[in-house]
């Protein structure tokens, strides 16, 4: 019973609303937890909601040209689009989103869409720091892509398909046949890649939040900044859902999804606290070293 087009769009909006709210809450709670770890009180959990409302409400904003506007539009469209192509919850029509338009490769490559748009917008702004930030971000991206790609290939060989829904179905029936247990090496490589992807310490040189605010968001304020912050939530949500589906058995209902994604993100943050920041070339050398070997091992395990 394929739902009709308008109904499908409505479902899409609903699913989007859920993931956005959940994403913002996730960021808020994570910020709070890391504050607690560092002995601070930390910001309230709903702080991200306040930020978005505050920046969207700004009376005027500045612009450096057409591309400068389109940057955040690309970014948010990238985030939302990525989420649209990932089936969040197995079996439920609402959360199936538009995953029928492409398989895992589409999702992997659509991640670049947002980054590309953001990079163009930032460099239109003319601020040298944004160009430096993009240069570091892209350099690091090519590095962590390798272990991630290897783990994807290993899964593709293991399950004989790149269709996310099929992968999730193959992991049903008890947590023992999650990819975590059937193909642990791939999961380790993917999780390390996820660190790089999310930009937390030790790979946070791209936006270097502690030091002077450099990197793409430097020039943006007002509603453009609001869109970027929204995207942070949606994009993280989408990535978490993807990881959940691929490696942790996916979810048959929303609460399971929330718990699993929370835990995945928690691992990410947990690791982030314990490490100083890598320089870009160190990050590159790191990713092309041990994680890649693990990825290769994962592929060898299943290929031959």
């Amino acid at each position, binding site marked *: 019973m394929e739902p009709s087009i308008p109904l499908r769009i409505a479902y899409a909006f609903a699913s989007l609303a859920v993931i956005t709210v959940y994403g913002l809450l996730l960021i808020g709670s994570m910020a709070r937890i890391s504050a607690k770890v560092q002995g601070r009180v930390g910001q309230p959990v709903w702080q991200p909601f306040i930020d978005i409302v505050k920046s969207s409400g700004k009376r005027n904003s500045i612009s450096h040209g057409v591309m400068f506007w389109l940057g955040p539009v690309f970014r948010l469209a990238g985030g939302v689009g990525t989420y649209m192509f990932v089936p969040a919850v197995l079996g439920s029509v609402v959360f199936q989103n538009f995953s029928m338009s492409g398989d895992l490769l589409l999702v992997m490559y659509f991640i670049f869409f947002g980054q590309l748009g953001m990079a*163009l917008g930032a460099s239109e702004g003319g601020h040298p720091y944004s160009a430096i930030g993009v240069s570091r971000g892209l350099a690091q991206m090519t590095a962590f892509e390798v272990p991630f790609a290897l783990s994807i290939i290993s899964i593709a060989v293991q399950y004989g398909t790149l269709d996310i829904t099929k992968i999730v179905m193959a992991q049903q029936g008890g947590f023992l046949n999650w990819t975590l247990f059937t193909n642990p090496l791939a999961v380790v490589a993917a999780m390390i890649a996820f660190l790089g992807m999310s930009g937390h310490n030790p790979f946070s040189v791209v936006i270097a939040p502690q030091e002077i605010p450099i990197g793409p968001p430097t020039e943006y304020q*007002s509603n453009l900044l*609001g869109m970027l912050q929204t995207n942070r939530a949606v994009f993280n949500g989408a990535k978490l859902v993807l990881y959940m589906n691929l490696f942790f058995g996916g979810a048959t209902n929303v609460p399971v999804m929330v718990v699993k994604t929370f835990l995945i993100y928690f691992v990410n943050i947990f690791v982030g606290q314990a490490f100083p920041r890598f320089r870009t070339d160190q990050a590159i050398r790191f990713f092309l070293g041990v994680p890649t070997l693990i990825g290769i091992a994962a592929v060898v395990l299943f290929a031959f």
Partner: protein
Amino acid sequence: MVTPLAIFAAFLATGFLLPLADKLGRRVSATLFWALLAGFAGLAAYYLASFVAAPGTLEIYTGGFEPPLVIALRLGLEESAALAAVAAVALLAAFSMRKALHEAPVSGMMTFLMLVMGLSGLVLTRDLFNLFVFLEISGIAGYALLGFDDRRLAMSAAFKYMVAGGIASAAYLVGVIYLYRLTGTLNLDLMIGSAGLEGAAGAAAVFFVLAALLVELKPFPANGWAIDAYEAANPGLGALFSGAQATAMLFALYKVFPLLSDAHLAVVMWAGIVTFAFSNLVGLRQTATRRMFGYSSAGQVGFVAAALAFGARYVEGSDFAWLVAGGLLVNHLLAKTGLFLLSAAFESDGDGSMKGRPGTLVAAAAGVLVAALVGLPPFPAFWAKWDLVRVALATREYAFVALVGAGGLFEAWYLFSWLVRLVKGGADETPEAAPVPVLRVGADGVGPVLAALGIAALGGLSAWTRGFTDPLFWAPLAGGLLFLALDRLPGKLKALLATAAIAAFGYFALPSMSEFQKLFALMILGGGALHAFAGGYLTGRRAGHFPLYVMTVLSLGYALVAESALGFFMAWELMALGGYFLVLQGAKGRSASMIYLAFSIGGAFLMMAGLQLGGGLIGGAAPSPAALALVGLGLLAKLGAFGLHVWLPGAYAEAADDFSSFFSASLSKVAVFALMAALAVFGEALPGGELAWRVVGWVGILGAVLGALAAIFQEDAKYALAFSSMGQMGYVLAALAMRDQMGWTTALYLAATHFLYKGMMWLSVAGASLRTGTRTMYLMGGLIKRMPISFVSFLVGIIALSGVPPLTGFGGKWLLYHSLIAKGWYFEAAASFLASGIAFLYLYRMIHSIFLGQPKDEHRTVKEAPFWLVLPQLLLLVAVIAFSVFPRLILDPIMAVVGARYPAAGFAFEGQTLVSSLGYWNGLLTIVVVVVVFVLTFIWMVMNLRKPRLVKQFNIVFAAERPFRPETTHFAFDFFAPYRRALGFLVRGRSEKAWTAVAGLATSVAGAIRRLYTGNGQTYALHVVLYVGILYLFLGVR
């Protein structure tokens, strides 16, 4: 039929009377001299015409009795052709030497006449002792002519020449007298087949005669004296030696062949081919032009002798000798004469210093002559080499073929370097710096132009006789000539005409094309027309660009529809030649074009050998792995596969901007077409079997990774795009190496989409560099405000290339990964992930450095790229968008074509969704979702955006100080410094170093060998005697 004895009577009578006539006045003797030469040429032409009409031979007996008693002459088709050649060269040489002849005492003219008579005697006589007499006449006349030059150089050279000539004639005499003693006669025809020749003495006697003739043909290493003679001689005389004397001597050698046993013929063959290879090798180190021509002449004459001997050993009937050796000889004859005359006209005294630069017509003639001499199409030597290599491979003479290839490559290198010095003046890289005056050469230019026309006509004739009669074959040449004639017209008009011409060729060629060919025709001919139109973007005449461009595109077109392997190969080499000249026309195209030429010629020779091994005909060839390997290597060189890619960045970047775009977008696709056709014809087995194909796959993937990696660190936009093209082609090669339905669909899809978006990017960069006047990226910046359309086209280009979903690029990535994983090539898939990641880097760097970031002051008033560039970009843009929205538009034809070749359905369409064993992709739905999401977000952004203020350039949040200079705030130089620290070591240019080492080895070996020519006449004589002795040992006579 006038008896040929009239030649001798006339020459001698005039010769004897010339001193008396000279007493009456130099005018009288000069007119007598020219009248005789012209009469002789007329007579020779008359003989040639009559024998072509009525083939047969005319035996002439002197002295009134039948042969054994008297000396017999013979005049047949071959003899009259040789006579005509001698007469033609004599006329041209005399014309070039006319000043020297008139100033010298009358004995100069007398000796010139005696030389010509001696040579015609050599051709006609059938009596061996009489051959000796004429050998002496032409020899002594040659030494005397060489001696009329007052310089000390000429004296000593003539002396060395005489010493060698003396040894040769002594050997000849001993040989002849014992031949008489053993066979009882001096007449060649009666001597053939007589019993006396069998024994050791007979073989030795024949050997001595043969050795004398060989020494006269200046074999390596016993030709030191000859090289000095060429260097010292007045170029007209040089032409006479290398053209006329060589022809007569070769003909004499050919006459003696029936006497020779197979061992003798083998000696001649190997002596000749060794001379060809090593003389040309030593030629590499020559800078003095005439000395270089000396080496080239010695090499070419050796080559003809080798061809003759080869024909005599392996091929029955004389048509091989006539077609191959004759073709090579006439090619050498005209080309060398033309080059010598050119050197006379343009160089002060042959040490390479130029008196002036030739005009367009003479420059074109010089190009034709050099191309003909090197054996490029459509000139006679090309066809001759083709047949020679075919028979050589059939008789498993592989070393012979290798030497032919090596010699040709060396000769091409130094001849084209000389041509570049001649045409673009001595200054190395900055022709503007010292504008050498263009010399209106007038009379002196006539000789070379005539020679060039002659050679072109003969090339055309030999093509016609090989059955190439369909107009498409002649289209490239006709097009080139037509546009050479139209060269005076303004550039823009020519651009339109060129587009029309290419479109017309497409219109005529399309009906006869199969689906497979149509696909590539779209890319190549469509791309050709597009870039022809873009060619109008420059103001002014663009002299020399359009003839070459049209020729290259049309030859590519013909390559698609060629039925026979020879037709395809001819188009292939023509396209390489046109490409070379176009790269040469680039501002700093000199060294890049030379490297490109070397790789093209080397690759083409490998391909020729492969095509020949594979049976030559595209249709009926039996599958043979060796043929596929060789042809494959040649194609990998043209594709710029990793390892053989050294020429690619320089050639793509240094050519004119619009040709660079065509070169990278369309021309590389012909290599893909050829690879696919080769697989269809020669079967899919490679010598190494499956492993070999896996290696080819890895070569492709490595090319992609390292190409992209190298592109990141380039500061010059065109070099970055060149390396990027190399990378993209790496993907295509890997996809081809998979040899299944999924692989080939990917390859064709990648090739087609690469053509689309790479064309846009090149043209956009062309517009940017035209407006800003520079190609270095960090000098540009902020052009989005002034050149929005170029920015959009470049943006769509990078989105498509990087594979970001909505556009066609993602289809390519999707197909690639699915076919790689399905094939089981997992690590290749991981490596291509890395490569496409890296691709992302340089794409962003280019668009940031050129269009975004800080605009420079001088670029404030820059206008948008000219309409001529923008229109093609828009067309391509529309195509990319169309294929992105409806992938089936392009995938259906591709899958139909591939389906015919590999029926197994790896990829299949279900409605709009493309399904493979591993997953699915619905292009239409993807782009709809993306667009909807984008529009919604855009509307959301516009709603919240209140009163946006457009701020000025430097109003940015900057730590403390206010930036005021765009140069300091445009971060673009060494953009990926951290990346260089991490992975820079991978692209340290190791293959460049490897290939330079190879070139260095060749030149150092050349340097070592040329130490042999010590300049001491006695040593040269010793070399001659030793050479004869060693040849005798090879003969193995007990």
